């Protein structure tokens, strides 16, 4: 059991989460990708905490758990609201803050 194995796992998990956020258009998959990235950070913190034999890394991971819970509550409420407003979860449909008025319906 080596710390480099855990580093590799955390990096791969982060890469997969980033790929999910940046390449999918389903809002729910984007949310799950963010969760995967936060979990990768947690794994990295736990590994460093274990290797340095100090509890501070675990405490930061615990604070990130609270962040995960807050993000879940907010993102899922936002998901319900967005689905209610346009009856879709396609992130390409929610562009009315990014584009001008005349391009809005053509997207």
């Amino acid at each position, binding site marked *: 059991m080596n710390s480099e194995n855990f580093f590799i796992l955390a990096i791969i998990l982060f*890469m997969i989460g980033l790929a999910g956020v940046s390449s999918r258009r389903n809002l729910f998959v984007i949310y799950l*990708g963010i969760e995967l990235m936060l979990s990768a950070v947690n794994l990295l913190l736990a590994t460093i905490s274990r290797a340095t034999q100090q509890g501070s890394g675990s405490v930061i991971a615990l604070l990130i758990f609270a962040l995960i819970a807050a993000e879940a509550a907010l993102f899922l409420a936002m998901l319900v609201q967005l689905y209610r407003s346009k009856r879709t979860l396609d992130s390409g449909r929610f562009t009315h803050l990014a584009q001008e008025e005349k391009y809005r319906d053509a997207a």
Partner: protein
Amino acid sequence: MLENSLLFILGFFLIAGALVTIAAKEVAYNIAGFLISMIALAGLFGLLDNSFLFLAQIMISVGAVAVLATIVIMTLNLRFENQAYEPNRVRIIIGVLLLEIPIGLVIYKALAASGLVITPAAEGYGTLKSLGKTLFEEWLVPFELVSILLLAAMIAAIAIARREKYYDKEEYFDHYKPHAIETNRTEPDSEELQ
């Protein structure tokens, strides 16, 4: 030896679950992959002698987030035509993963240069007692700030999710004309039920 094989098995489930999470087409399969990935991650926390993080991972990521996400998806009653049309998603994901390999290598080199090795755990490492001592002695202010964050998130979630009267009006849909509305209109919705 046992630890290495456990690490291999848990790592396989972690990565496979994560890949299913982002690549599957149906949302239920996404959540199932996420669940497998999070349980494997809890096992990895246990392998790192961190029993409290193991418990927290099971309780929060598996017990709260995944279950809440399942309930939300079931409540939304997602239909096939209401989801994004992504026929090339696997190819795009593979391309993005290939693009990310250099970044991952850089991060790996930086982490491996720290020279951290896992030695046998000290007495009382990772237990609830030592973690609580660290939390309430050195990390008290961030802990209190996180409680304020959770309060704000709770209030915001209630405020976001309850604004229903405006969006449920028909004029809102006439103004925006999303593509999936036409298929919804033909179904027996609120008018016929009344």
